[in-house]
């Protein structure tokens, strides 16, 4: 864990920006959950770009960028949860803000070689945008509220919160993230062509249930 550094404003220590405070386990869990969700959705965006524009260099590059960003988000979520710190520190926050702007631009100006894939992919981008904003908001909340709790008690994970309540909060966060992630994955190109499920709502032409 990165050590505390002295505050320029006085004797009270200030937490470095890459520290995710242990005093707020539910918020830290939400950051990890949203990181897993956003990483998964970005991998779906990557596969959609590859499928839509295999011969278009711009689409290919966008796919590569989405894939790398998705892998980075998954790795970052593991670091946040396992090591209690934000991998990349301040630069990670800038990258998150840039990713949110990119998702917003992709929704506003959809670019696709196949017009039919543009609308569903906007849903995937919207899902990624929501999850990215969830991470940014949670980090901001920790920055504002976590420092006081940490400096006051130097608490450990879960301090002051009963495990039962903590698990209820974690479960609510997990369902929220899964509820945002799943429609995003399903709306991606790969999701549309996935093996038809019980609902039979999105059967791909030529799928194994087609006669």
């Amino acid at each position, binding site marked *: 864990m990165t050590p505390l550094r002295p505050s320029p404003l006085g004797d009270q220590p200030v937490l470095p920006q890459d520290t995710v405070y242990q005093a707020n*386990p539910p918020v830290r869990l939400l950051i990890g959950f949203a990181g897993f969700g956003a990483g998964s959705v970005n991998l779906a965006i990557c596969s959609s770009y590859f499928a839509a524009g295999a011969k278009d260099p711009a689409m290919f590059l966008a796919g590569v960028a989405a894939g790398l960003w998705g892998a980075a988000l998954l790795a970052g979520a*593991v670091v946040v949860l396992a090591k209690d710190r934000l991998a990349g520190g301040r630069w990670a926050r800038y990258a998150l803000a840039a990713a949110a702007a990119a998702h917003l631009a992709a929704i506003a100006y959809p670019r696709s070689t196949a017009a039919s894939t543009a609308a569903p992919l906007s849903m995937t981008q919207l899902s990624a945008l929501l999850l990215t904003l969830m991470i940014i908001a949670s980090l901001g909340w920790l920055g504002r509220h976590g420092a006081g709790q940490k400096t006051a008690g130097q608490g450990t994970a879960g301090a002051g919160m009963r495990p039962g309540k903590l698990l209820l909060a974690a479960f609510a966060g997990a369902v929220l*993230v899964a509820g945002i992630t799943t429609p995003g994955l399903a709306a991606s190109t790969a999701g549309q062509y996935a*093996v038809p499920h019980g609902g039979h709502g999105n059967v791909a032409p030529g799928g194994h249930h087609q006669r």
Partner: protein
Amino acid sequence: MRNSPNRLVATIFGAVYLLVGLLGFAVTSGVGFVATEGANLIIFEVNPLHNVIHLAIGAALLFAGLRGTDSARTVNSAVGAVYLLVGIVGLFLLNSPLNIIALNGADNVLHLASAVLLLGVGLSLDKSPAAARA
């Protein structure tokens, strides 16, 4: 047990998955072992292989939850990672008969929710002092 979120999660999820695995067999009579079209258990589609996997995961989680915190952490993380993979891969089995556990949309939501919860709790809570300092 009460003071360890990992043991609580492992025990509760283990009991629930064992129950779901047993109930699944009540609705899947006549369904092929690896049929891509299963039967609905409430809104979750299952087939016999899916039920067997639920039983195995439930047993592993329950055993780990009752055994101790370290075991619970390890099994929660491992099962969470597997569920994350299943939640993603479940959507990406492109146009093939590889959906051998009869996944549907509700399954995928539940698998992703289970994945993030188990992985999150397993990785971040009940750390030993040495691990927390690392």
